[in-house]
């Protein structure tokens, strides 16, 4: 288990594409199947693959756990922030129409930001839970 070079080499080449695919799913939520939740899960799965092949310490160097908890909060904050912003701009809570000059663009940007918040939160919470499990002493 210590030096399985096949898994290490393959994972290094594969993980960038997994992460980019996650971001593709993230930003094409309103054109095809997908959205923030799935994207967050795929992104976290890519990092988990790195932790499985190169060990938890290497994965924690890429995604430091002390950054993950604030990121999870940031995602929720983004979600809430969009809601507050719509209220401040004179609409109802999460009424995206007021975010841009016309309703269609407003909807577009609003959903994009909301989904980004969901994705960030899901990915970081999943990684926090995963790291909590693997660093636990048996």
């Amino acid at each position, binding site marked *: 288990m210590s030096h399985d*070079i096949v898994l290490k080499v*393959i994972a290094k080449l594969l993980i*960038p*594409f997994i992460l980019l695919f996650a*971001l593709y799913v993230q930003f*094409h939520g309103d*054109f095809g199947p997908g959205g923030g939740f799935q994207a967050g899960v795929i992104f976290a799965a890519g990092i988990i693959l790195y932790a499985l092949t190169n060990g938890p310490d290497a994965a924690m*160097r*890429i995604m430091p756990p002390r950054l993950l908890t604030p990121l999870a909060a940031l995602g929720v904050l983004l979600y809430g922030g969009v809601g507050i912003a719509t209220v401040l701009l004179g609409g109802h809570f999460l009424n995206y129409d007021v975010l841009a000059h016309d309703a269609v663009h407003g909807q577009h940007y609003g959903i994009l930001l909301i989904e980004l918040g969901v994705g960030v939160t899901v990915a970081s919470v999943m990684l926090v839970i995963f790291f909590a499990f693997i660093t636990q002493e048996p």
Partner: protein
Amino acid sequence: MLYFSLLFAVLFGFWLLLSGFWDNGLLLGLGLASSLFVAWIGTRLQSPEQENGYSLGMLLRLPRYLVWLVVAIVKSNIDVVRRVWDPLNQPITPVMGRLPVSQRTSLCKTIYANSITLTPGTVAIEVSDTDVQVHALTRDAFADLAGGEMDREVSRLEVGAGHRRSSPNGKGQA
């Protein structure tokens, strides 16, 4: 830096082909940002103390190798399928053994091990610095592999056809 630029270019191409929205400025911008971000993470995945073994020459020699590999895959598939349907005339004779690995970089060792596994009938079990443990479905498949043609092809990928090194064990001159 070369790795970063190459990775970025490939990732952005990947995004364009996945997305299909080539006239939407917002999505193009997001794609650019995503590719930069992921290429940055991707370069950090490469640990500095470890050689990565990539070179442009290798990339150019790759297509020829892939064609050779696909032909090998088709041949060995046919062999295994015949042994599934006709067990009386073509019985399986499982073999377990070790074969030398002549590649130096871990990337090329990985390519060799994966090529062994990708051709049905032979599976690479454990890869060490000098040899690879192989399980083969038939004695013939093992003998083919021991003949060293695949080893030579991968080594050629590594160093180029011009100055091919001889295999360290004097094998592969079949």
